[in-house]
């Protein structure tokens, strides 16, 4: 996983996505715009972070989980 370490922590690009979600982004397009990461990386990264329980997806909208929130300021 490019956005999650084997220990289940977000990488630098993972943290950028989590910060984008914290600042109000809910779609991959918004996360890409705020984080400056390419859209394909965001789509794949969000998928990985959902699997790692750092992010949750409900009806196409992404949100931080409690666990994900602990890794960002």
């Amino acid at each position, binding site marked *: 996983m490019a956005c999650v370490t084997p220990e289940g922590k977000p990488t630098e690009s993972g943290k950028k996505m989590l910060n984008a979600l914290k600042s109000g982004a809910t779609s991959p397009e918004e996360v890409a715009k705020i984080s400056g990461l390419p*859209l*394909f990386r965001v*789509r*794949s990264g969000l*998928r990985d972070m959902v699997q790692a329980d750092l992010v949750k997806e409900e009806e196409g909208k992404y949100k931080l989980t409690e666990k994900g929130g602990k890794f960002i300021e």
Partner: protein
Amino acid sequence: MEEIREEIIHFPRVGEVAPSFEAVTTHGTLRLEDFKGSWLVLFSHPADFTPVCTTEFIAFSQAYPEFQKRGAELLGLSVDSVSSHIAWTRNIQEKTGVKVPFPIIADLSKEVSVKYGMIHPGESKTETIRCVFIIDPNQVIRAILYYPLTTGRNISEILRIIDALQTTDKYGVATPANWQPGEKVIVPAPTTAEGAEERLKEGYECVDWYLCKKSV
């Protein structure tokens, strides 16, 4: 009597929806659908740490901003491992100062290579040849290029094809031989006798009714 079996291998063709995949890359696990909405240049190379491929990766990396300007992403592929790709791209950066900014598929299982017809046994039974698939934002294959193992690709031509396809999509025109952005484009030829009659009066620059150009 010995049964004769002929294996029919399907190669993706221009105008078809690109075959879907999920693959391990240097940027994590990526799916074709992750690129939806962007143009995508999916290209294969024979092997990491080989001379022609190294020159191509330097050239693709240097041209990456030009691809981005056109809303296009790059995705490399070979049958090497992720560790090999990482070691090779780090070596390229160390020796030449060029950072490879795009992901590379590690197609050890050859799943993607086979789906896209990237292995041509006449050239090599084990390596992918130099294929280029230009895929549009709707994930339709718009152009395919094949190069032999010994010939490095012309990156300017790949950019030119994207420019031509984007111009065609935007204006409903075609582009002539050796066309470059800013040059005149071809107006689609009329398909009726009446249309042919009218064409020469429509103010285009025409050689004859079937070959007319205009600026866009």
